[in-house]
Each structure stands twice: as C-alpha cells, then as structure tokens.
C-alpha cells in the first residue's frame, strides 16, 4: 500500500508538472521555470516560519507570489539594467536560492525542512504523514490530497485558458491584436509553475521538479507535432516514469525522486537516439542512387 501511495503521489505531481512544462518548452522558457523552482525556496521558509506548518494555503499563495516576483525581477534586470537575459536569470535565481538555503540552515530548529529535502524531497515519507480526522477516520496520506488538489487546479487552468495559452504561445503578436493579454497569461502560467513547485517541493525537491516539468514534455515533443497530443503523451510518460522510477530507487536503495528522474532521462535518451537514427536512415534512403534511379 505504501508503494501505491508513493507512486500515486509522484504520478499526480509529475502530471501537473508535465502539463505546465509543455508550455514552458514551447515558449522557450524552460530555464525560467528552472529559475522559479529554485527561487520559491525563501518564500516557503518564510511561510513556514509564520504559519508553523507546511500544508497551508498561505504557503502556496506566498510562494506563488514569490515565483511571479522572480519573473518580474528577471524582466526588470533585463529591461532596466540592460543585463543580458541569461545572466539576469542566473543571477536572480542563485541569489534567491542561496537566501533560502541560508534560512533553512539558520532556522533549522524551527522548521521542518532540511537541505536534503530542499534538494531531492522526501517522497518516501508520504505514507507516514496521514490525514486523520477528529473522529479518527484515516483518509490516507496528506500529500496525495495536495497532489490531487494541485492537479485539479492545473486542469481547470488548462481547460479555461487553453485557447489563450495556445495563442500567446504560438503567436503572441496575433494574440495581442485580438485582445488576449500576453503578459497576463505569461504571469498566470508562471504563477501556476510556482504554485505547483511549492506543492511538490517537499516530495521531490526544488531541482528535480525541473526534470518533471521538462523531460516528459520534451519526450512527447519529439514524438508529436500537435499540442493536445503532446500534453496527453506527457501525462502518460509521467505516470510511466513514476512507476518505473520507484522500483529502480527501491532496487538500489536511493532517492525515489532521483530514480524517477533517472528513468525519465533514460527514456528521453532512447527516444532521442531512435529519432536521430531514423532521420539518418531517412536521409540515406533519399540520397541513395537506387531510389534516385
């Protein structure tokens, strides 16, 4: 049952991440997603210090604001200080992440996160943190509900905003002409990325979240041209890597999040190599003299 809970939680988070990741990849903003996932750490610690617990709405909102603030800060350094874009991203998130890690080590006694949790989360402990009602009914692991809640919010966001996200992603100028707020949808997307990061943070850690966002969607992007199919494939891949990754980690007794990411990396490598080989095969058939003759 523990294995089921862990895999289910991981899959739900991975699905949320891959949906958002599809848009990040298409908008060429994967590294901004990476920056946000690092930069929300101080927000999480501050919210922790104020509320004293981790599964609070304040935390998600607080860190969500910080994520949007990061996006704003990157833009600000890029526009106002004319700092080149890549350096603006690099400076902003390393600074905020360093701040977060310092806070984690300073307030080690008062908050329930440590450096390991920051890096790769503690999804193995999911089955231990149960939601038990006052009358003593056991509803199962708390993280499972958080993961489902976040997925539902992301799905609602996707259903309501699909058209707008689609247009602002592929043709921002056209979107602006027909009155769809490009900046607004950008910030909404970044807000969702931060929110999902915060929710999934204690399970998979800040850095491996990036892998969940980028890798399944990148695999899907190599396999299809259509956005709907890309998202759907990303979801299937997310579930697959969560299951296989769990058993890989169990086999060599390592971090489960690390195992999931490793499996996703292997899957990507396989798809990448078949694609490249297929392309090479296609090229040789076209240029071979028999076909031309």
């Amino acid at each position: 049952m523990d294995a089921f809970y862990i895999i289910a939680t991981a899959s739900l988070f991975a699905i949320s991440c891959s949906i958002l990741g599809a848009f990040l990849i298409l908008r060429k903003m994967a590294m901004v997603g990476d920056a946000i996932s690092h930069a929300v750490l101080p927000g999480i610690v501050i919210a922790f210090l104020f509320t004293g617990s981790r599964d609070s709405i304040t935390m998600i909102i607080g860190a969500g604001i910080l994520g949007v603030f990061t996006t704003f800060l990157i833009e600000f350094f890029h526009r106002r200080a004319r700092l080149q874009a890549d350096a603006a991203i690099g400076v902003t998130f390393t600074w905020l992440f360093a701040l977060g890690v310092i806070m984690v080590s300073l307030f080690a006694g008062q908050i329930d996160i440590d450096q390991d949790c920051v890096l790769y989360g503690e999804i193995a402990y999911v089955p231990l943190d149960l939601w038990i009602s006052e009358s003593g009914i056991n509803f199962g692991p708390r993280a499972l509900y958080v993961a489902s809640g976040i997925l539902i919010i992301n799905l609602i966001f996707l259903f309501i905003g699909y058209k707008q996200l689609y247009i602002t992603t592929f043709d921002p100028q056209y979107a602006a002409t027909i009155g769809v707020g490009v900046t607004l949808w950008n910030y909404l997307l970044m807000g969702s990325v931060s929110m999902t990061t915060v929710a999934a943070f204690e399970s998979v850690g800040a850095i491996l979240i990036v892998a969940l966002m980028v890798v399944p969607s990148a695999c899907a992007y190599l396999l299809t041209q259509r956005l709907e199919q890309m998202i759907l494939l990303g979801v299937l891949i997310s579930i697959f890597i969560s299951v296989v990754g769990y058993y890989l980690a169990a086999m060599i007794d390592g971090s489960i999040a690390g195992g999931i990411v490793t499996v996703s990396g292997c899957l990507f490598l396989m798809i990448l190599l078949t694609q490249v080989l297929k392309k090479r095969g296609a090229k040789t058939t076209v240029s071979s003299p028999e076909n031309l003759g």
Partner: protein
Amino acid sequence: MELFFEFFSFQDASIISVVIGSILLTSSSAVVGTFTFLKKKALLGDAVAHAVLPGICLAFILSGTKNPLILIIGAFITGWLSLITIDFIGSRTKLKEDTAIALVLSVFFGVGILMLTSIQHSGNAAQTGLDSFLFGNAAALIGTDLIVFAFVSLVLFGVVSLLFKEMKILAFDPSFAQVIGLPVKTLELVLTSITVLAVVTGIQAVGVVLMAAMLITPAAAARFWTQNVLHMTLIAGVLGAFSGLAGAFVSYSAPTMPTGPWIVMVISIIALISFFLAPKRGILSRNLQQRSLRHLIMDENLLKELYHIGEKDNTPFKERSIAAIMRERFFPEGQLKSGLIRLKRKGFLVNKDGRWKFTQLGYEKGQRMVKLHRLWELYLSEYLKIAPDHVHEDAETIEHVITPELEARLEKMLAFPETDPHEKKIPY
C-alpha cells in the same frame, strides 16, 4: 566580533590555508566566468555545475576513495558530457537550447542524487563528507585537497592570461576570429574545458548547486563598472576573491554551516548594489540621465512655444499666462509648471504675477530652437524629398540634439533660406 579578529589575524595555519584556498577557487572561477558571460553562455555553466555531481559519485563508487584528483577527473568527464549532450540535443532535434539545458541539468543532477543517496544508504564509512560537495564546505580545504584544488585554479589563471587576447576576440566576434586565422574550434574547446574545470574546482568551496553563480554573478557585477574586458576580468576576479574570503570566514565561525550559499549571498549583494548604483550603467544613473534628457526636451519645447506665441502677435517680450501657453500646445500641467520654474532658475524666463516672459537669453534660445526646427524641415524636404506634411515629427526630435557645428553646416548648405516648407519665416 571576537571571532572576527581571531579569524583575520590569521594566527592559525589552517585558517591561512582555508583562506588561500577559497580565494583561489572563487576568483579563478569568476575570471573564467567572465568569458562564459561575454559569450552569453552563462546558463551552460549552471548545467555543467549540476552535471558534475554524477561524475563525483561515480568516481567515488569506482575508486572507493575521496581522493580529490580522482573526483576531479570524474567530475570533469560528466561535466564535459553534459555540454556535448546539450549541443547534440540542440542541433539534432527541434528542442531549443533552453529546454536542452534544463533537461540535461536536471537529469544529470537526478542521476547524481540517486547515486549519492544510494552511496549514503550503503553504510560505506568512507562516504562521509561526500555530500559537502552539494553546498560546499570551505573548511575542508586543507592538506592534499588544498594542493590539488589550488593547483587547478592556478592552471586556470595561467590559461586565461596566456590566451586573453584570443578569448576576447572569440567572445565578441567569432567570425572575425575565424577570418584573422585564429584556431576558433580549438579555442572554443579550450574555453569549454576551462569552464568545466572552473566549475569542478569551485565545488569544494561553493558546492554544485550554486556553483553557477560563481561563473555568472561576479562577471555580471563587473560588467556594470567598466567597458574594458581586461578591467572587467580583473574586477570579477577581485569580487570573486572577496566573496571567497567571506565564505572562508563563515566556514570558520560556523563549521556546520554550508559555505556555498554564503559566498553566493555576498557576491549577489555586491551584484545587486552594482546593478542599481554603478555610475553610467546602473539603474539609478540611467534613470537620472533619462530624467535630465526629458527635462532638456521639455525646457526647449517650452521656449519654442513661447517664441511661436510671440511670433503671432509680434510682441515677443510680452507676459504670457499658463493658459496661453496651453492654447499654443498642450503640456501636462505639472510638467509645464516645473519646467517654467526650471527655466526661471536658469535665467531664460521671468515670472510676474503668475505670467511668464522671455529674458533676452531666453528669447535667443527660443529663436534658435525654432530656427533649427525649420531648417531641418527644409533640409528633409529639399534633400531627402520628403513631403512637407511629413517632416514635422522628425524635426521635433532632432532639434534637441543638433550641435552648433551641424547648425552651421545646415545654414551653409541651404544658403540661409528665408522660409521653411510651410512658408514660415526662419529667424536668424
């Protein structure tokens, strides 16, 4: 405070070695980072930094020791491999470079974490301290570790100073480098290698997670203080050294504290101060420049409009009300009033009972603006054959920046014309 003096008196031999070590590590990576920054490859450094983790773990698993030389070799190999993979994904598939970087970064790091946790759970006693590579531990820079890491930093300094000119050209204009016969491919290879090496050396003090900051942030901060690449490299090196010193101090005063985040915090604060306060390029000084330019344009426009009003009723030195100025041309009221006050302070206008009139100086300046505006309109329509109804906008912007030399040339070229394309008299 006591700790502070104790530390900076450098009584203890181990303090000296930790200080020297941290300074060398952080300043050498800052110096190399200057070139990755200039080549706009800053985020590749982030990928390399994360990608050395599996290399370190693998080297440990295979060798069973924490010999720094072996770990460095392992880190170097996976760091390089990550760059090759990013390049391969970027050039062979439709995935863009940023996706490739994010993907390689997180996957390599994930594999590293899987190995690291597996090593930790294996109960191998030799592994303690391996996790200090995550966030850095400057205090561990003693003995062989110090010698190996310091040696690599010196190699980095050596390579950069020997190839400084070539690297500079490569960073700014690779095609020019190709044309003048520089071995561009080899140089790229060298730059990539020293970048990977810089990351690898820095991890002892800063750790893999935040190592990217040591490549990016000192260079970004230095960029705001100079236009000269040599100066920029030196400033970045000094800033890097300073943050390294701060890191060593933290490591000394609080041994359990990871040093990396503190080093990054110090260098980031320096960078933020530079972004805002640096002369010329900083946000504050940029805003001031923009403001003084806005004021200049506002003032000159006001003088010009006052001249226009005087031209109409032939009494240039008559007092005008604010309403009269507004009738001639609309200005936002606050800006109009502060502009008038500025002009009074400069001696171009005098104020009497809330009405404004030219001084001789102000009249001449207003006349000059009108002249410049009309000369430029005439120049555009005569020489560039632009229709007279299209020349006003352009003249409106350029009139503020025409120098006396250009003014003299325009007058000579157009032979002191009487009227502009709208048949208005050009005043001399």
